[in-house]
């Protein structure tokens, strides 16, 4: 088990290293001259040259990468070109706001997705199962941005129950804070719930048809014990992996949702960086997203190993 953990850590370090090179290299070819961006379009060529020298923009790419990467490792995320201030405080603030949004959503997704999936899987072929199937089917066909706009139209526009956009700090009262979160959380969670419940359902159906579940029935166990003790622990293992994948999908989702709801999180910061061609900010956002996703996958793998006796205890040959 210790060996397994170290191997997974190593592979994540490797992925991060490769990804950072890729991100740096791709964003280097972004259109627009950094010096002109800082100095304005009418800067004199001499000033531009001086600044480029000062920023090291004429150094070979690998030197620039090294400077950037070692800065990152030491927690120096660089300076935003457009906002003209250090990135770190801005970024951490955005990350914490996104974490609230995504955290609540993923919690809801896990809870409801699993419950609905298990229910439909156990009652495979029943009317309830069909209702769930049709609902998830339609749900998957509606893109997040459309869903967001429609619920804004309904709940903010016509019904006026919740604010359409924006963020309210906790200091303004829990009620206001929650009212601002409800619509974005609802949008994020709904899309992924379909995903989780569909996969949980199919995993549950497969498990219910295994030989060991049949053997449990042959021992005379009542159906609810068969499900709870024999089917569930095995059927829910793959769901852990699915949830990790969903963390990744959700990282994409926050870009769309935060843009629409004007929610000041990581996704909106990323869009801001892209729209303003703020290369250092873009690089920092990308690295953070890669890291969070990698960490989620690591956690899922470890949790999977912890809950799966095959990995936990390895194979011993006790003949």
């Amino acid at each position, binding site marked *: 088990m210790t060996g397994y953990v170290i191997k997974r850590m190593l592979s994540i370090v490797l*992925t991060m290293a490769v990804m950072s090179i890729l991100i740096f290299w791709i964003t280097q070819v972004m259109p627009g001259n950094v010096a002109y961006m800082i100095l304005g379009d009418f800067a004199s060529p001499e000033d531009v040259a001086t600044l480029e020298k000062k920023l090291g923009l004429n150094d070979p790419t690998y030197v620039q990468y090294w400077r950037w990467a070692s800065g990152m490792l030491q927690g120096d995320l660089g300076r935003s070109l457009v906002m003209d201030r250090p990135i770190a405080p801005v970024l951490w603030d955005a990350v914490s706001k996104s974490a609230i949004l995504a955290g609540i959503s993923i919690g809801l997704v896990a809870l409801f997705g699993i419950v609905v999936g298990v229910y439909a899987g156990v009652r495979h072929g029943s009317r309830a199962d069909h209702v769930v199937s049709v609902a998830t089917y339609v749900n998957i066909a509606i*893109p997040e941005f459309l869903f967001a706009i429609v619920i804004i*139209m309904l709940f903010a526009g016509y019904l006026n129950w919740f604010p359409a956009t924006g963020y309210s700090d906790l200091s303004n009262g829990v009620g206001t804070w929650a009212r601002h979160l409800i619509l974005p959380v609802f949008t994020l969670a709904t899309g992924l719930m379909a995903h989780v419940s569909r996969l949980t359902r199919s995993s549950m159906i497969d498990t219910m048809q295994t030989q060991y579940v049949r053997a449990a029935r042959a021992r005379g166990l009542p159906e609810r014990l068969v499900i709870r003790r024999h089917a569930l622990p095995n059927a829910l293992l793959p769901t852990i992996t699915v949830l990790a994948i969903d963390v990744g999908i959700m990282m*994409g989702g926050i870009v769309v949702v935060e843009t629409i709801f004007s929610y000041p999180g990581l996704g909106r910061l990323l869009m801001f960086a*892209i729209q303003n061609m703020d290369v250092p900010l873009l690089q920092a956002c990308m690295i953070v997203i890669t890291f969070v996703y990698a960490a989620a996958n690591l956690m899922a793998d470890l949790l999977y190993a912890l809950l799966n006796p095959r990995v936990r205890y390895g194979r011993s040959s006790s003949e």
Partner: protein
Amino acid sequence: MAVAAASNSQARRRPLPASLKVGAALLFSIVVLAALGPSLSPYDLDAMQLDVRLVAPNAQHWLGTDEFGRDVLSRVLNGAQSSLLMGFGATAVSLLFGVPLGLVAGYYRGWADETIMRAVDVMISLPPIILGLLILSVTSPSLWKTVLAVGFVYIPIITRLTRSITLEVTGEEYIQAARARVESGWYILFSEILPNAWAPIIVEAALRVTFAMLLAAALSFLGLGVQPPASDWGLMIAEARPFINQAPWIVCSAGAALCITVIAINLFGDGLREALDPRLSRRR
């Protein structure tokens, strides 16, 4: 042996699944509408009529008009082309690269497999939308670049799928038989393995089309895909968003068109899965 031959008409013809028929019919009509779009549309795409801005659906404009007074129906009809193109084009791109990579990784194993799969691991270490944004943020946006970027994003998934099917097929004894004849790798990959692998790949590809379409729409919505004044459903929704309360019909029309297309392709894909591989029909 005579007995054996007699009872041997096992060409079992099962009826085609309903989802396949409905999906195919819907998809066919959408493709026809997309192809005939320009000639069917009642108004010129970009004809701005400033006197009829944001008009609700009526006899002249069945789906109303937008903020420039352009006919929504015409734009929705024309948007079909760009959505279908992005969905199918991007999927074609990912198949073109993903299938050969997966075949090679799954059949040859060893360092080829190791290299390809590590590259795939890196590619999926960014979520699809983010990877799409990263690629598109560094170039000036256009339809074709969106197609390529979205296609690129889904290469790892096709590679992984093809590889796992290839692994399964390679374990079959007829592949061993081919190797015992010292057949070339080329022959084994494309003449023995691929014919047995294409069914699940095609089924996956059909479902991939909808993911690609939705991703492309999201990218266009974020302003990094198709650019104005082109008619694209994602872009239309983005453009109409500020007027959502005055003119909900624009978002609703474009959104409904997108959803119906996605559902049609999903139905078609699920039906195809059921028809080609009944064992898998329950999954997903």
